């Protein structure tokens, strides 16, 4: 726990600047469509990783807010023809909905499994509802919801105030990368603030934090709402990448996938979920290109193996291994030193 507090306080700025530079220079050497998608998934995983890894709250249906962000963007953009208001709404609406659901759960003292059901059920309700909205009767303003076919052909992001300059391709990549880096810094800042310390305290021992006078449900509702806003932003960016939104954004598959990324990458870190999303996302895209092995077979096997063999995830396991190695190297050096001293003193004895 101590080391975690230490690392939460001391951001490794060298690494962060290096990674930021790599991400910003990537378009010079590679196409940007796949990296954009991976960065969007990373942002989504980051939002769940922040809430689950530090607040100890597992939402089984985090995809609800991802999909809500995407749909909100698409519907608002179609109605206003301009993207700025749509982008802001796509962040605010998921945050608001999550605040209501979160308050209902946390003030109701609903425990972990039951919370899992409620969050999952909410995603399923949205999935079923959006799937049943085929036909002209279901429209919001000028946007037809379109059932399982979803909403295509909505206006893409544009430079705020000027609808003639659209952002897509490499431009979209830069927007996504800036959002990802910004959210990462925001998460780091939250965790190093007093709010973040209390949040980690709630994860460790909720009863003790409450006895110290903190209002745990308020803190949990706040982080739930905040990470839902991040997921909404990721969903909005995804809508711009895919240029269509469909009910599968809310689906069981999307809910599972983000959990797998976070678990595999590592709970209790911020870089872990990002890394998990990038690695498993690349694997998924690679598997999608061939038909020999079924995609879900591999993802399922990975999830089972990670839970059994690396229950703490990739990044924490590597970090623990490095600490162990450093310690044993230091230990060996120290014991070698004492042996040498003993040897030299021993030599003087007759």
């Amino acid at each position, binding site marked *: 726990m101590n080391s975690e507090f230490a690392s939460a306080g001391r951001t490794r700025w060298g690494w962060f600047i290096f990674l930021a530079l790599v991400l910003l220079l990537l378009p010079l050497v590679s196409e940007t469509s796949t990296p954009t998608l991976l960065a969007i998934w990373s942002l989504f995983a980051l939002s769940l990783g922040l809430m689950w890894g530090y607040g100890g709250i597992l939402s089984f249906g985090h995809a609800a807010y991802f999909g809500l962000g995407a749909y909100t963007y698409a519907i608002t953009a179609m109605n206003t023809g301009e993207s700025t208001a749509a982008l802001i709404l796509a962040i605010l609406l998921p945050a608001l909905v999550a605040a209501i659901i979160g308050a209902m759960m946390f003030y109701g003292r*609903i425990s972990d499994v*039951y919370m899992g059901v409620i969050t999952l059920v909410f995603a399923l*309700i949205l999935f079923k509802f959006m799937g049943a909205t085929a036909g002209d009767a279901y429209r919001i303003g000028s946007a037809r919801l379109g059932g399982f076919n979803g909403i295509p052909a909505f206006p893409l992001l544009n430079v705020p105030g000027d609808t003639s300059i659209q952002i897509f391709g490499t431009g979209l990549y830069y927007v996504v990368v800036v959002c990802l880096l910004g959210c990462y810094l925001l998460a780091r800042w939250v965790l190093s603030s007093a709010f973040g310390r209390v949040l980690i305290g709630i994860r460790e021992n909720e009863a003790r934090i409450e006895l110290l006078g903190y209002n745990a449900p308020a803190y949990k509702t706040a982080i739930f709402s905040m990470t839902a806003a991040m997921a909404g932003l990721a969903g909005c960016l995804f809508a711009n990448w895919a240029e269509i939104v469909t009910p599968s954004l809310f689906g069981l598959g999307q809910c599972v996938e983000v959990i797998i990324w976070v678990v595999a990458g590592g709970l209790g870190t911020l870089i872990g979920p990002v890394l998990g999303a990038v690695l498993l996302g690349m694997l998924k895209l690679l598997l999608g290109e061939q038909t020999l092995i079924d995609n879900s077979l591999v993802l399922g096997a990975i999830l089972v193996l990670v839970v059994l063999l690396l229950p703490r995830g990739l990044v924490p396991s590597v970090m623990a291994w490095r600490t162990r190695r450093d310690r044993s190297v230091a230990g060996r050096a120290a014991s070698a030193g004492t042996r040498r001293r003993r040897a030299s003193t021993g030599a003087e004895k007759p």
Partner: protein
Amino acid sequence: MDYAAVVGLEIVYMIAFLALTSAGLAVVFGMMRVINLAHGELVMIGGYTTIACAKAGINIYLAMLVISPLVVGLIGLLIERLVVRHLYGRMIDTMLATWGLSLLMVGLVTLIFGNTAVSVPAPISGYQLGSFQMGGYNLFIIAVAVLTVLGLWLLLRFTRVGLIARGAMQSADVASSLGYNPKMVYMWTFTAGAALSGLAGGVLAPLTGLLPSSGGAYIAKAFITVITGGAAVIAGTLSSAVIFGTINQLVSFGSTPVIGEIAMLALAVVVLRLMPQGITGRFFKNSA
């Protein structure tokens, strides 16, 4: 009058469907506090087993009532030995690992049977109720559900096996000091739960065509039914099956089936908010 009878029958059928598909999950959750998210895929494999047997010329009742539970029970035994037994007491980890298993099984079945729907005709023909054509096979499902729940209750309440199982769940230490190995009890309980899932899958197979992804349709409903029911295996499952089945069908008849399902899901949220420990956390506390 006929219409009322049809609605009534459909409600009873829905309750039976929920109770049957949730029984396996309820045994494993209620007795062991383990949530098996691969439950839907166990049901799906039970269905595939029945269809494969029926196509191979085996009597379909033998296939669904005997072979499917056996096959799926064996798979459950395998899962318990290889994965679940390492994770007892870690509820979230168990859920994640079994979720992984569910994806794995979907992948395997896709590999073996392909991603196309398979089906088998129902062995009981329909009948006429007034001016309505009814599926006769639904009555068979209702009968199987009643017998399953009744059998489970008798087993847990009145037999030595049931006593040992309940004892090991209440206090593993006491059971083990009396000479019963709790680990073996867990193993057989999980296997029995899987066999019940296989039975449900086999019996339901003739009703709907099966896809490798069909398990997803069962897991959400079963999960909600069991968790809302709470810790008591039979009283919990029955009470939530009755509530959800009734609401689902009444709303479905009033509007569309999708709205019915949404009403059921929304109701689950409300019930859990009012009773955070499930229905049997508040009522029927001392039942099996």
